[in-house]
């Protein structure tokens, strides 16, 4: 049981950092640019499709990812310049409508280009093995790599926001858009850059998912809902909050899914437990969110902006 708990904690962590990659961009865009972007999940899908295709073309996982990242960044920039830029001054309902339209647009474009059938790809050579994280607990190398990549991105974002000039400008733009503009900061350019960065993080999540699961139109939407839960728990606009909330959601979802039905089976009749267990487990993170919002209505780490 102890070993299983540790292995499941790793699974939860892996799911968590995956969510963080998606939530990081979402919370930056929502918190700093004050834009509700429902189409953030589409960028996960775009990243996954681009990477799957590029990996096939180049024949190398690393090369594929290296090309797909800037490509997704570019897609993000184009979307920001063509569509989102006109939405900053509008209210949230307009933004929701427009970005929902983007979801439909992206799903359809993907269907036209790649077809409606799912794409499947295998694990990259060299990462398909197992590592013993503890004696007797083999863990897939690729999933460990996802955890590592996620943590690296978290550090990278922290360094960018807290230690660089760009991060300073982002923070300045977030706390007072007009003032930063008046001091000569190119806010438009800055927002484009932030959006592009967020897009490539989301795309990276999609690229990591490709070898594990199917790549298909609409694959980002279920993840987007979870990413929203994450940024609401973490506090909108807070990267630190997004990180902690992602791990929390990942762990609660995974451990709940595994251990709640077991727990119920020891308390009530098997048939009841089989019915209630999975249903309750899938509600857990929403219960968690509601619970946290009761105690901290603005999330765990409310950003000090606006």
């Amino acid at each position, binding site marked *: 049981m102890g*070993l*299983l708990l540790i*292995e*499941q904690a790793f*699974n*939860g962590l*892996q*799911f968590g950092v995956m969510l963080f990659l998606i939530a990081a961009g979402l919370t930056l865009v929502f918190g700093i640019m004050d834009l509700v972007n429902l189409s953030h999940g589409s960028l996960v899908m775009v990243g996954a499709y681009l990477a799957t295709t590029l990996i096939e073309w180049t024949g190398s996982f690393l090369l594929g990812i290296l090309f797909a990242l800037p490509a997704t960044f570019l897609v993000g920039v184009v979307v920001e310049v063509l569509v989102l830029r006109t939405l900053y001054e509008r209210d949230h309902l307009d933004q929701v409508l427009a970005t929902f339209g983007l979801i439909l647009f992206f799903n359809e474009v993907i269907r036209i280009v790649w077809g*409606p*059938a*799912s794409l*499947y790809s*295998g*694990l990259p050579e060299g990462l*398909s093995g*197992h590592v013993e994280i503890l004696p007797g607990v*083999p863990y*897939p190398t*690729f*999933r460990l790599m996802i955890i590592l990549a996620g943590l690296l991105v978290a550090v990278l974002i922290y360094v960018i926001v807290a230690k660089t000039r760009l991060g300073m400008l982002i923070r300045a733009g977030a706390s007072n858009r007009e003032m930063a503009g008046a001091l000569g900061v190119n806010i438009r350019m800055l927002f484009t850059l932030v959006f592009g960065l967020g897009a490539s993080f989301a795309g990276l999540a999609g690229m990591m998912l490709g070898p*594990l*699961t*199917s790549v*298909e*139109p*609409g*694959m980002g939407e279920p993840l987007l809902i979870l990413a929203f839960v994450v940024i609401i728990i973490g506090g909108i606009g807070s990267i630190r909050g997004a990180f902690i909330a992602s791990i929390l959601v990942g762990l609660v979802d*995974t451990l709940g*899914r*595994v251990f709640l*039905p077991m727990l119920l089976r020891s308390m009530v009749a098997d048939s009841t437990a*089989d019915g209630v*267990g*999975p*249903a309750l487990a*899938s509600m857990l993170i929403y219960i968690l969110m509601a619970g946290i919002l009761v105690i901290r209505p603005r999330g765990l780490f409310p950003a000090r902006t606006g």
Partner: protein
Amino acid sequence: MNKKILGVLIVFGLMGSPLYAEKVKVGFMTTLSGPAGIIGKQMKHAFQLGLDHIGNAFGGMESSVIYGDDQRKPDVAKQLADKMVKKHQVHFVTGVIWSNLLVAIHGPVTRSNTFLVSANAGPSTVAGKRCSENFFNVSWQNDQTPEAMGKYLQDNGINNVYLMAPNYQAGKDMLAGVQRYYKRKISGKVFTKLGQKDFQAEISTLRASNPGAVFVFQPGGMGINFVKQYNQAGLMGSVPLYTAFTVDAVSLPALKGSAVGVLGTQTWSPDLDNPVNRRFVRDFRKKYGYIPSFYAAQSYDLVRFIDHAIRVAGGISDRDALRDAMRLGGYPSTRGNLRFNNNHFPIQNFYLREAVKDSDGSYTTKIIDTVFTDHGDNYAKDCRMKW
């Protein structure tokens, strides 16, 4: 002069026939969009091949088909069925892959006195007490295929089996089916979320419980993801995998070599040896360029079933005669000669199939054993229909 009269007669003849002869209208509902769209595509292809084989005329009568995409959503299925019944006034609502969708449309369609013919879904809820004289199933009852798997596991002394299925009606039916015949120790049981894509947490739990074998029911894309991740976890060699509706012609093109050797049970396989099936598989591969799945075979059977019944009944105006004709069975099926149980579900053989690489390099399934001969379902006894 004679030619002129002949011409006039032909013109009248052409005008007359659609006006006076009754037209057969068939609604065909399947999932064409989303991840399960590939199943719907195969079913539609097979349905159209069936139409080719009957000359686009059910029972030799003028026919029209209304296709519908249920998007795998019960509410959409219900709207579609309503539209087919009320607006198009079809004689048959057919197709339906998913059990939860069939349950949603079963009441409204059968009550409207329209025939509902399932080409795939066979939930227990409509096989027993709620059986209907207007509902026919040309595939199987959900429990039967896993029952065959359970019997195989039991007969071959396999012990400590771990069970896994998605958390919905068919998933529950499947596991109940295995456990009706497999009576030894169960090492664990888990219901996953319908549509789940990452099974890593479940696979970790499964490995920790150290089972002797694993039985899974994960249809469509879920199965591809599961088998892939089962392989990635390094379990394929060490813990044998037994399946129902998971490794088939829909998933094999994506699974490729990773599923070779996996055993499953099914009522049909491309290599099933009978004249109807040989012609179906040959023509299907020729027309569409890929190996048909059991979904396709059942969809083809559906066309032949309706066509045969209309021929025997001599038309579609007498609904009771048509029902009697359908009950007779005896239509040219890809599974040989089938007859129906009192609850309108087929009584048929169940085979053990193995995933293999075929001589031309494509991945397919091969029958290696017959598990059940003329197997009826467990719920027929609860159905009060007698005929």
